[in-house]
C-alpha cells in the first residue's frame, strides 16, 4: 500500500462519513502514513476529532478509550486534533476533556474540579512561553524572566505534588521553549546568555519533578524542536492565543500516543531487524563477509551507527532478533567473527536466517518468545518484505528503511515504540533472560517427559510480601503481562504503592530461579480482605515461567496463608481479555468451585478445606512477613 492510496482511502472514508464505522481500518491506513507526511496527519486529525467517541464505540465496542484532560495556559483546542490522530494510529480512542482558558491552577489544585471529576487516565498540562512572558514587565531584563519562571516552577511543582497525592492517572508536563524573539530582543550577548541560563535552569527543575513523583512525566520539548520545527507561530499566538506551533503540538502528541500505548499495556517488546541493507551494507550471500559494509568507509559508518543504536535499545530490555533471508551459517560467522561488527550474536535473543516468508518467521519468533505478534516492531530496507509483513500481520509496526543508511537511526527512533515511564532492573536483564529461556527450550527437547524435565530443571520459587523496592516491577508486570493476567487490571506504580501500604491488602511477589539462572521478580498476587474472605484481585505471571509449577506453588502458599490468618474462603475472579484465554480455567483446575460465570467474567471460590501442596519438583521459600 503506498502513501498515496492510504491518503486517498482516508479521504474517501472522511468524505463518505465512514471513519467511525471503519475505525480499525483507519488505524491500518494511518500505519502507512510516514511520519514526514505531516499535512495528511494534520488533516486526518481534524476529521477524526469531529467523530463522537461513542459512535466509534458503538461500531467497535472493543476499542480502548482513554479519557485525557487537557489543561494549561493558552488556547488548547489545537492539541485535540493531533492527539486524536496519534491515538487512532495505535487503535486507541481519545475522549478529550478540554479545560477553560488558563484554568490549570484551579483544575489541578481543587480536588472537586471538573478535571478530577472526569477521572482522566492522562492529564496534559501544557506549558507555553506566554505563561512566563504574560507576567514579565516591559521593558524587561533577564532577572525579571528568572523571577517569573522560578515562581511558576514552584507553582507547578505544588500542583504536581497535589496530583501525585491523589494517586490516580498520569500527569504530563513539558519544558517551555524559549522563543528567539525574546532572546533577540536583548541586544547584548551577556544578557542573552543570562536569560538562556535562567530559562534552562527553570526547565531543568521542571524535568526533575519526574524524580519526585511516580505518576508525573515531563516531555522535553527541546528534543522535539531540535529536529528543526518552529516552536510557535506568531499569528496563532497573537490572534488565537495558541502559543505553540502546530508542528510542535504534533510532535508532542506523538509522544503522548506512545505514553497512552504504554499505560494501556500495549508497549512493544521485540525489535526484529533484517540484516542485508539494514544491519550491514551489501548482500552477505553475494559479497561475502569481507565484502559487506559494517564499520569502514562512508556507508560502513552509517551501518555502525545503526548497530550501536540497536545495541543501546537491547541494553534497555528491547528483545532484538534478526530475521533475514540468508543461510544461517554465514550469518553466524559474521556475528561471531567479523572484526567490524558492533552487534554480536549475544545481542540477539534469536537469529532467524532462512528463505521462508518473513511474516511466517515473525509469527514463529513471537511464539518462541511467548509474546503476541502485536508486540513486534519490524525494520527492513526492502519495500517487498515490508509490504508483505504489513499485509499479513497488520498488528506488527513496520519501520521503513531505504538505501540511505544514514537515515536508519532517525527512522528507527522516529516513533517511540519502546517508550516506557521507568526502567526496572528486570528490563535491563530481559534479553539475557529470554536467551536463557531459549536454551531451556532446547534442554526441554532432550527429555522424554515434562516431569523428568521439571525435576532436572531445579525450579526454586520465593514467595514474599512485596515492599517499596518492588513497586515499579509489580506495576510493570500488570502493564506488560497479557496472557497470565487473570483480570487485566492495569496498575500504575502509585496504585501498587497504595496497596502495599493498605493493611487490608495483600501484595505477594514471586521470584524464581532454576539451573539456568535467576529469573527475577516474575509474578505477583494482588488480594484484599473483606471480613473473613480473601479476594484475589489479580494474579500475574510472566510468560517466561509459566507451566513449571510456579503458579500452583504461589497459589498454594496464598491459600495456606489465608487459612492460617483466619480466612474462611478465598475468592478469585477471571475477566476475559483478547489474550488471557489460556488462564480461564486456572482457578477451577486448582481446587476452586465456580460461583458465577457469564462468559466474560467468572468468580470462583476455594473453601480452604483441601489445599493442594506445591508440586514436588519445586523448592519453596516463603517470606510473608
Amino acid at each position, binding site marked *: 500500500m503506498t502513501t498515496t492510496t492510504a491518503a486517498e482511502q482516508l479521504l474517501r472514508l472522511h468524505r463518505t462519513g465512514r471513519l467511525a464505522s471503519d475505525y480499525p481500518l483507519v488505524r491500518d491506513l494511518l500505519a502507512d502514513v510516514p511520519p514526514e507526511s505531516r499535512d495528511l496527519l494534520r488533516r486526518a486529525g481534524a476529521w477524526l476529532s469531529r467523530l463522537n467517541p461513542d459512535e466509534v464505540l458503538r461500531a467497535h465496542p472493543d476499542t480502548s478509550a482513554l479519557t485525557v484532560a487537557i489543561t494549561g495556559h493558552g488556547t488548547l483546542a489545537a492539541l485535540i486534533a493531533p492527539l486524536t490522530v496519534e491515538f487512532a494510529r495505535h487503535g486507541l480512542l481519545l475522549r478529550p476533556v478540554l479545560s477553560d482558558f488558563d484554568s490549570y491552577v484551579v483544575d489541578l489544585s481543587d480536588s472537586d474540579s471538573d478535571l478530577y471529576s472526569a477521572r482522566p487516565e492522562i492529564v496534559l498540562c501544557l506549558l507555553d512561553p506566554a505563561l512566563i512572558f504574560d507576567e514579565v514587565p516591559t521593558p524587561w531584563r533577564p532577572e525579571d524572566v528568572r523571577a517569573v519562571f522560578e515562581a511558576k516552577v514552584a507553582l507547578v511543582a505544588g500542583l504536581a505534588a497535589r496530583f501525585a497525592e491523589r494517586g490516580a492517572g498520569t500527569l504530563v508536563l513539558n519544558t517551555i521553549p524559549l522563543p528567539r524573539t525574546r532572546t533577540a530582543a536583548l541586544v547584548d550577548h551577556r544578557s542573552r546568555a543570562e536569560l538562556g541560563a535562567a530559562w534552562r535552569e527553570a526547565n531543568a527543575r521542571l524535568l526533575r519533578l519526574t524524580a519526585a513523583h511516580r505518576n508525573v512525566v515531563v516531555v522535553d520539548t527541546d528534543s522535539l524542536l531540535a529536529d528543526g520545527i518552529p516552536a510557535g507561530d506568531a499569528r496563532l499566538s497573537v490572534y488565537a492565543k*495558541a502559543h505553540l506551533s502546530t508542528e510542535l503540538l504534533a510532535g508532542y502528541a506523538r509522544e503522548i500516543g506512545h505514553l497512552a500505548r504504554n499505560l494501556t499495556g500495549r508497549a512493544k517488546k521485540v525489535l526484529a531487524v533484517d540484516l542485508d541493507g539494514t544491519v550491514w551494507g551489501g548482500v552477505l550471500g553475494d559479497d561475502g563477509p569481507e565484502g559487506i559494509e559494517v564499520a569502514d568507509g562512508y556507508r560502513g559508518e552509517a551501518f555502525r551507527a545503526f548497530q550501536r543504536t540497536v545495541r543501546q535499545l537491547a541494553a534497555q530490555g528491547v528483545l532484538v532478533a534478526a530475521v533475514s533471508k540468508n543461510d544461517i551459517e554465514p550469518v553466524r560467522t559474521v556475528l561471531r567473527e567479523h572484526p567490524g561488527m558492533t552487534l554480536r550474536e549475544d545481542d540477539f535473543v534469536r537469529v532467524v536466517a532462512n528463505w521462508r516468508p518473513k511474516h511466517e518467521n515473525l509469527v514463529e519468533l513471537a511464539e518462541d518468545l511467548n509474546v503476541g505478534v502485536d508486540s513486534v516492531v519490524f525494520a527492513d530496507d526492502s519495500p517487498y518484505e515490508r509490504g508483505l509483513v504489513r499485509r499479513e500481520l497488520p498488528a506488527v509496526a513496520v519501520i521503513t528503511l531505504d538505501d540511505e543508511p544514514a537515515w536508519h537511526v532517525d527512522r528507527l527512533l522516529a516513533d517511540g515504540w519502546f517508550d516506557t515511564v521507568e526502567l526496572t532492573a528486570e528490563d535491563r536483564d530481559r534479553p539475557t533472560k529470554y536467551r536463557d529461556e531459549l536454551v531451556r527450550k532446547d534442554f526441554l527437547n532432550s527429555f522424554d517427559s515434562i516431569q523428568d524435565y521439571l525435576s532436572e530443571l531445579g525450579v526454586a520459587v520465593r514467595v514474599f510480601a512485596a515492599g517499596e523496592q518492588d513497586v515499579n516491577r509489580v506495576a510493570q508486570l500488570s502493564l506488560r503481562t497479557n496472557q497470565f493476567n487473570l483480570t487485566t487490571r492495569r496498575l500504575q506504580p502509585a496504585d501498587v504503592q497504595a496497596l502495599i501500604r493498605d493493611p487490608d491488602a495483600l501484595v505477594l511477589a514471586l521470584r524464581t530461579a532454576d539451573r539456568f539462572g535467576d529469573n527475577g521478580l516474575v509474578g505477583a498476587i494482588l488480594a484484599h480482605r473483606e471480613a473473613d474472605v480473601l479476594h484475589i484481585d489479580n494474579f500475574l505471571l510472566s510468560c517466561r515461567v509459566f507451566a513449571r509449577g510456579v503458579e500452583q506453588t504461589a497459589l498454594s502458599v496464598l491459600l495456606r496463608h489465608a487459612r492460617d490468618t483466619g480466612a474462611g474462603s478465598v475468592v478469585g475472579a477471571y475477566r476475559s481479555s483478547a489474550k488471557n484465554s489460556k488462564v480461564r480455567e486456572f482457578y477451577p483446575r486448582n481446587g476452586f468451585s465456580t460461583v458465577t460465570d457469564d462468559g466474560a467474567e467468572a468468580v470462583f471460590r476455594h473453601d480452604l478445606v483441601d489445599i493442594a501442596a506445591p508440586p514436588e519438583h519445586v523448592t519453596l521459600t516463603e517470606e510473608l512477613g
Partner: protein
Amino acid sequence: MTRDEFTALIHDEIGLAVATDELDRELDQVTGWDSVHLLTLLTALEQATGRSISLPDVLSAPSLGRIYAVVAGGA
C-alpha cells in the same frame, strides 16, 4: 473559488461539514467551529488561491460567508 468549492475545502481541511446555505450564519452559531481553525483555514485558502490573505480581515469576518467574500473579493 466557488461557494461550493469553499465549503468542500472547509470539510477536507478542518473536518467541518457546513451546507452552502449555512455560510452566512454567525460563526458562534456554527456547530463545531473554533477560532483556532482560522489559521489552518487561512493557510489552506492561501495554498488554494496562490496568494496571501490578511488574517486580521479574516478574523474580523463574522461568518464563513464573509471569509469567503474576503477571499473571493481579492481574486
